[in-house]
């Protein structure tokens, strides 16, 4: 039932066209506006250029961020490798020293006996 009222409202509120004279009136008023208020082709092109430029800058900034991030990650990996190598070297030297000490103690024991 309420659909009927909806349909009648839609019919009652059908949009109406003001006619071609309206369009001409709008265009005439635009033509009569001071030049500063008009959208010149130059200004429109500049706006488009600015949009492109800001998009390009954003892309460059994003690419820079990615490169910096990757470089930093690589640096961390290299530092990790170096630290690992140094630890291994330290362990190797310590092991050699311990072997040497063990050998000396063993030799002394044999000569004492």
């Amino acid at each position, binding site marked *: 039932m309420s659909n009927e*009222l909806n349909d009648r409202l839609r019919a009652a509120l059908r949009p*109406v*066209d003001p006619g071609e004279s309206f369009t001409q009136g*709008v265009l005439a008023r635009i033509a009569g506006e001071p030049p500063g208020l008009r*959208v010149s082709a130059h200004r*429109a092109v500049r706006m488009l250029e600015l949009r492109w430029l800001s998009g390009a800058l954003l892309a460059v900034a994003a690419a820079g961020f990615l490169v910096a991030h990757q470089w930093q990650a690589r640096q961390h990996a290299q530092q990790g490798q170096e630290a690992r190598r140094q630890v291994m070297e330290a362990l190797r030297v310590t092991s050699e020293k311990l072997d040497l000490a063990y050998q000396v103690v063993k030799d002394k024991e044999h000569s004492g006996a």
Partner: protein
Amino acid sequence: MLTRALAGEAAAFGMLVRTHQRSVYSLALRMLSDRHEAEDLAQEVFLGLHRNLPSVESPAHLTFWLRKVTLNRAIDRLRREPRQTVSLEDAGALVIDGTEQRDPLLQRRLRALLAQLTPAARAVMLLRYQEDLNPNEIARTLNMSINTVKSHLKRSLATLRERIGSGADMGAGKTELGCLSDEAG
């Protein structure tokens, strides 16, 4: 068309006006109930569009912008210069296209009753029944909460049903109005 108008092509802007003038003019007319004022307001809206064209991002944004600006300006005018409500006898003055196929009297009365609603409620009803927007879209256009929109719709429809029902003997066919008064119950 929008891109060409943005580049300053007057013919393209003219096409934009032709495409949207029905909607803008009709919203203004049904808000203000005066042809001359409606035409003036609609022209101002298109002048504003011409100045703000670089900020319009897409055809959908353009339609949204036009509806929003038209209704806001109409509501502002009504606040500055409150009108007398339109009587049912004057409702004939609101018929402007002469293309009504059926129930012309009922349609006149509906428009007259709509003109008696508050400006905000009228704007909601126009977006719903003239522009066919859903409550979410209406809320975004008028910057209202969805609950406010639903409340306006509910109250306005109840008012229309009640008034049409009570005026069943005031000129329109009794059969037609009988159907609508049944809805109120």
